[in-house]
């Protein structure tokens, strides 16, 4: 009887785990972001206000559990196999090994995957028949007003998050706030890759070319900005400008869009 009970309990436990995993990795919900005008933070010849047409966007950042499935079916994106040109040595360093996040890391299964490069993020989205959002799409989506927001202002909330060092354990997705489009965690959880993350500084190797010459340092950085007091946007653009496609950073993840 005792034997039978323990089998029963084990079965129940197993089923629960299965069910949980199933909910975690079920087809990701996407929501529609209505088209609208996007005004770049840095105005220049190649960064003019543009109209962004409606698109679909992942409701949350891609989680560790979701990314594990991608790695399982795409061996070249395993930690030990990845090409260094496409992901630096920090790639998935928070996982136990190639195909296990690790039991001790169970707490982060449903947290955003981080330590992934732009190339890896792009490959994941492509595998899902999606793509990374452009800066314009991401910013338009992230500007959505929060629902039931407990903070005084979105900028205050973002600044408070930006000015704190990364937590040791990253919280789960949906742990911050939801915005008017139904998107979760656009701010306050991780930084997110964008398709053209460094394009606002003209092409990556010609930051000092002609009219697109902008300096993200010193007073030069204040000449062409849309709103000089929007320190949150300022920080975001400074951050993106310092990235390279193979960087893997412990507070940088992604979500995908469908046009």
């Amino acid at each position: 009887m005792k034997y039978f009970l323990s089998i029963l309990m084990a079965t129940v436990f197993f089923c629960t785990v299965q069910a949980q995993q199933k909910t975690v990795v079920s087809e990701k919900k996407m929501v529609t972001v209505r088209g609208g005008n996007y005004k770049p933070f840095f105005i220049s010849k190649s960064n003019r206000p543009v109209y962004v047409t409606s698109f679909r966007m992942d409701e949350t950042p891609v989680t560790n559990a979701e990314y594990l499935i991608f790695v399982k079916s795409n061996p070249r994106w395993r930690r030990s196999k990845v090409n260094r040109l496409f992901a630096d040595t920090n790639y998935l360093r928070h996982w136990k090994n190639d195909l296990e996040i690790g039991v001790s890391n169970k707490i982060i299964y449903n947290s955003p995957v981080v330590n992934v490069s732009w190339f890896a993020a792009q490959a994941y989205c492509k595998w899902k028949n999606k793509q990374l959002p452009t800066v314009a799409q991401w910013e338009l989506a992230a500007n959505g007003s929060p629902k039931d927001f407990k903070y005084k202002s979105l900028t205050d909330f973002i600044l408070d998050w930006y000015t704190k060092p990364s937590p040791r354990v990253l919280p789960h997705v949906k742990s911050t706030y939801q915005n008017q489009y139904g998107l979760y965690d656009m701010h306050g959880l991780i930084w997110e890759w964008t398709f053209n993350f460094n394009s606002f500084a003209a092409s990556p190797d010609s930051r000092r070319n002609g009219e697109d010459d902008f300096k993200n340092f010193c007073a030069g950085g204040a000449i062409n900005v849309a709103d000089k007091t929007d320190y949150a946007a300022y920080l975001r653009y400074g951050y993106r400008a310092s990235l390279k496609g193979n960087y893997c950073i412990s507070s940088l993840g992604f979500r995908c869009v469908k046009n």
Partner: protein
Amino acid sequence: MIQISKKSIFSIQMFSVLLMFSVLFFSCKSNPGNSDDGSNKIDTTLTGTVSAELTFAPNVPKPIAYTSPKKVMVQLEAIEKVMPISDSSEYTFWTFGGHVPGNFIRVRQGDLVDFTLKNAPESKMTHSIDLHAVIGPGGGADATSTAPGQSTHFQFRALHPGLYVYHCATGPVPLHIANGMYGLILVEPQGGMPKVDHEYYLMQGDFYTKGKYDAPGLQDFDETKALSENPDYVLFNGRVRSTTGANALTAKVGETVRLYVGNGGPNLVSSFHAIGQLFTKVYMEAGSEINRDVQTTLIPSGGATIVEMKMQVPEVINLVDHSIFRAFNKGAIAQIKVTGAENPSVYQKLK
């Protein structure tokens, strides 16, 4: 400049102030003692490689012992860290090396500085560095935009002697500076600095928090106060009472003390003053001009000064920003404790 000066001479009194500035500027420019083009006058043939000694305030690296230009390796790390700003308040500082101010760097005129900036993997932010001693794009900022967990690398020649501020130059620069990302680099002249008994490192900075001065708990940055240049704290070395009481600087009667003092700002200009002393020597704005017997010297935001004092009597010298509310209410006090025999011929208290 000459034209303006001539014009001013023939103008009415209203312009006399302008004239004074013009003449001052003109005379500085034409001073034969200053090398306007140091690169032509200094030896730049490298004679080996050394690693720079780096220190944290109030300590200063030992004087440079070598007498010919070296390649000097310097590595700084950007670290974001919660630390006490006062007895009751904490603040999330952004730092070079985990302290405010950051590492003191000491090199010699003519040295080729090989500079690496690391950004700690735990950092939330991108950081960079603009050293005012660098002649080149952004003072190094153009080459050092460094994402968390990454590092960047550049070289510069230390052409001009002086004490220079360095600071983070990633947008928005004011926020990075307001959070404590600054420090000093000393470029010793080829002949070295004259020998003194003590050298110390102080750096002033203003801080803006959501709560009032010494409000309990972790305090967030207050953008509104920063934009209106109304700080809650004006501090030496990043903390209320960083350099007072048990942590005071020390010296003995008869000794000479040299202070390397920077002002990180971001907003305030310092009226640097020593209560119960005066500066026998001031390297004005940390440049090559020396002024003597000065009571209070200005330190611009993003600037520095070098001052010297001869200790005459036992006392506690309060070093303050003489915009005096800052000293009394916002924390701008550091101390030198001078010990030794009384010197009644200089000072005595009478009944």
